[in-house]
């Protein structure tokens, strides 16, 4: 048993719903009790979808459990097939139905339906949403392609056939981060290089489209969390190679294009000439970006977006990554390996409170995270940008805002730097608050949390308490001069400086902290 106050990922059947809802002509019969229908609102509210997810819930009740739940399941399957006329049926169960072991998948297969039936076994007590999505997509592709004979894969076959190379874009799905726009951006870039798109799946694909997957010269694995298992299977069974680089950021987009050219046996590409299609490199170089230098950034989210964000932060914006982690267990190894290269220990957890602690500990100036880190950062008074699911409705913007490709890099520059501008503004407000022209009501987006309390408030809040709150012989206190020196320190590092100073004071046996001790401590920790 694990105590969970909030979870980054839903159960695996929600992942299956993401695949079904992303596609056309697929229906999902989910053996589940009433209440599990809440999952519909993820699609209709967060994604603002105008259609219900194509899901029939059996909504069994306690009184059904004494009787024949298998008949109930079959009834719902029959009705769903008649009403929705799907081209392919997914059948599975949620956590509760898994316990009563009706095996709805086998029941469906025994009903003699004249459409392909994919039986989903998604262990609800050990796996989570992204795994469920990946497994569903993989099982679906496998089922549909089981009759398709493997032809010998010839790299560069497109040349022999006198056509342009074509690729599949795999992984975009509903409730993924900015998938809708990423797909458009990648299609645009590929078109510029004379590469056609064969199938995009699961987003917008029909079962017939999946049958055409094997016609591609390569697979582009856009979101490894969702599509890697399918890409591996297509490679193993049909020899179709797939890309390993996710094109988020300038460097990654460039590497991705070069990798794809190589896989497709196209002429070697020097994508360096293309990066000026994005404004990120120049904006980052421009003189007013100087203040971005060495900004401390904390990154948490799904594996793909975290790895991409870390590379952009480090290589393209000149930030300093001070904390990194993911909730994706499946991506833990990759994230750990990467974090070692930048001298950090990755945080792999599903506990948002642990993430919040890690943020506090590393005292970043910018947090890149999920909607939960946005809340944590708000509480801590630190600017934040959302880079990964889970997301809220405001992370599904009306405007075109991809993360991938050249335009994605533009979007990322704006999304990450704007909160920092406001962070800078916050600091300026703190600096100028003594000027007589300064209006008391002037606050930035961080509101009261920004750390610049009015001078009177700061004074009347009496002495700053020892942050460990020990009232034993180890306790230290701040002189009023020490306090006012502390208040001059930018708010985003003030807590850390305070803690360090107190730690230093305790170490050297100093009971009263004044301005000099503060400077001593600063020098001590720099050394």
């Amino acid at each position, binding site marked *: *048993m*694990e*105590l*969970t*106050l*909030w*979870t980054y*990922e*839903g*159960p695996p*059947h*929600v992942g299956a719903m993401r695949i079904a809802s992303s596609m056309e002509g697929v229906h999902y019969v989910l053996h589940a*009790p*009433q*209440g*599990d*229908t*809440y*999952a*519909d*609102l*993820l*699609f*209709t*509210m967060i994604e*603002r*979808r*105008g*259609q*219900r997810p194509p899901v*029939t*819930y*059996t*909504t*069994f*009740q*306690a009184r059904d*459990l004494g009787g024949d739940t298998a008949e109930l399941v079959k009834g*719902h399957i029959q*009705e769903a097939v008649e*009403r929705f006329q799907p081209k392919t049926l997914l059948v599975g169960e*949620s*956590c*509760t139905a898994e*316990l*009563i072991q009706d095996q709805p998948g086998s029941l469906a297969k025994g009903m003699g339906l004249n459409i392909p039936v994919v039986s989903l076994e998604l*262990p*609800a*007590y*050990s796996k*989570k949403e992204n795994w469920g999505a990946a497994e569903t997509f993989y099982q679906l592709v496998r089922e549909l392609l089981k009759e398709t004979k493997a032809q010998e894969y010839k790299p560069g076959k497109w040349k022999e056939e006198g056509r342009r190379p074509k690729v599949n874009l795999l992984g975009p799905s509903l409730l993924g981060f900015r998938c809708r726009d990423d797909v458009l951006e990648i299609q645009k870039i590929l078109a510029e290089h004379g590469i056609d798109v064969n199938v995009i799946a699961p987003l917008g694909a029909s079962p017939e489209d999946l049958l055409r997957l094997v016609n591609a010269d390569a697979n582009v694995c856009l979101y490894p969390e969702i599509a890697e298992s399918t890409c591996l299977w297509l490679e193993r069974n049909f020899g179709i190679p797939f890309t390993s680089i996710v094109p988020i950021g300038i460097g990654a987009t460039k590497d991705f294009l070069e990798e794809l050219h190589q896989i497709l046996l196209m002429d070697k590409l020097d994508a360096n000439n293309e990066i000026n299609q994005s404004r990120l490199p120049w904006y980052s170089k421009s003189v007013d970006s100087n203040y971005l230098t060495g900004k401390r950034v904390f990154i948490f989210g799904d594996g793909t977006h975290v790895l991409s964000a870390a590379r952009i932060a480090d290589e393209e914006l000149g930030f300093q990554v001070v904390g990194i982690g993911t909730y994706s267990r499946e991506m833990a190894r990759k994230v750990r390996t990467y974090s070692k290269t930048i001298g950090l220990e990755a945080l792999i957890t599903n506990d948002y*409170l642990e993430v*919040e602690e890690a943020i506090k500990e590393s005292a970043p100036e910018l947090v890149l995270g999920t*909607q*939960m880190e946005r*809340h944590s950062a708000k*509480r801590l008074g630190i600017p934040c940008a959302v880079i990964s699911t889970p997301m*809220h409705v405001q992370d599904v913007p009306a405007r075109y805002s991809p993360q991938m490709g050249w335009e994605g890099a533009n979007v990322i520059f704006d999304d990450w730097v704007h909160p920092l501008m406001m962070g800078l503004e916050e600091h300026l407000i703190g600096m100028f608050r003594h000027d007589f022209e300064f209006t008391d009501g002037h606050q930035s987006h961080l509101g009261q949390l920004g750390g610049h309390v009015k001078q009177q408030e700061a004074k009347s809040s009496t002495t700053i308490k020892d942050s460990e709150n020990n009232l034993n012989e180890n306790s230290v206190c701040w002189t009023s001069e020490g306090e006012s020196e502390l208040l001059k320190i930018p708010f985003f590092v003030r807590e850390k400086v305070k803690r360090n100073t107190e730690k230093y004071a305790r170490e050297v046996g100093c009971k009263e902290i004044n301005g000099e001790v503060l400077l001593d401590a600063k020098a001590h920790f720099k050394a």
Partner: protein
Amino acid sequence: MGGATLLKETGPREVFCGLTSIVWLHRRMPDAFFLVVGSRTCAHLIQSAAGVMIFAEPRFGTAILEERDLAGLADAHEELDRVVKNLLARRPEIRTLFLVGSCPSEVIKIDLARAAERLNSQFNGKVTILNYSGSGIETTFTQGEDGALKALVPLMPKSEENQLLLAGTLANAVEDRLITIFQRLGIGKIQSFPPRQSTELPSIGPGTKVLLTQPYLTDTARELQNRGAEILKAPFPLGVQGSELWIKAATDSFGIDRSFVDSILEPLIIRARKALKPYIEQLSGKKLFLLPESQLEIPLARFLHVECGMELLEIGTPYLNREMMAQELDLLPESTRIVEGQHVEKQLDRVRAHQPDLVVCGMGLANPLEAEGISTKWSIEMVFSPIHGIDQASDLAELFSRPLHRSKLLNREPISIASN
């Protein structure tokens, strides 16, 4: 009982389970914690229904069952004890802990009553541990509150005193207002259940007369009755009429003179009717379809029909307790179509066939209906908004007229600039 047409339907349902009521219960009693013993689905459900989480640590959580718990590798009760101890060590301010049963915990038959008993003896009065079920196989949405309150009834102290007890969670402001009105009417002692602090339970006994503020407290009402209280028969306090009858059920039973009661309520009623008027203009004659979810559907429909002139196409309700709803049904016109239970697909077919002006439905269905050009109102809003009482009648009407008003605003003929 009125001549409403009562129908039953079975099939796939689209309703929340009882766990959802934790979303408002934990706010009502800030010293209580709700620990669901369930799965990741349960945790995901509550956080999705609660929307964005804006607090550092919520007062609800899920002890998620894992493979080893199911495979018998870990003793579920030992595991639960461990989780509870850690939780209470972390949150020392918690006075009452509700262990909430879920679909999986019911199916694998984890005996939460036994767990609560055991933990109670371990915590020795410092924290009270109770249990109830919010599972979807047994409860819908608001029934979770019924379960939680029922669990609290045995702890209520005994009292012979004559008093009025308001049962069911209300918004604090509305509760204060209703209490003020009852005091003005001369009722001396008025208490609320659930209380604002879980440890300050109201007393109960033969002198207690209970007014239910919410229509979903079937089991709680029975338990209160078993403790000697009298459940007053009245419609629910939604709208001017419902609230007036509800208040008068209490004043009558306390033997307060009707003409005095009228003299107090009259000005409130006149003011409320005045405030209602602009909304009646917007709502009157409009066709309303209510899908089942919160159990408030029948009282809401009664208000919107009788006081606001809306035409009722169908009232869906998750379940129908005729005794509880008797006074409501009496106020509904002959031939009102009430459907108990649900076949969501067939019901949506009927919605499309009738083209209502407004549909009251759950969050999963609202946008798809809007996309088909049908205005909607979320039923979950009714359990969060201050809508009870005479003074709130116009606010309640406003909730329903806003979507109609908006659709009118967005569908205006464009103003021609070249007017000549």
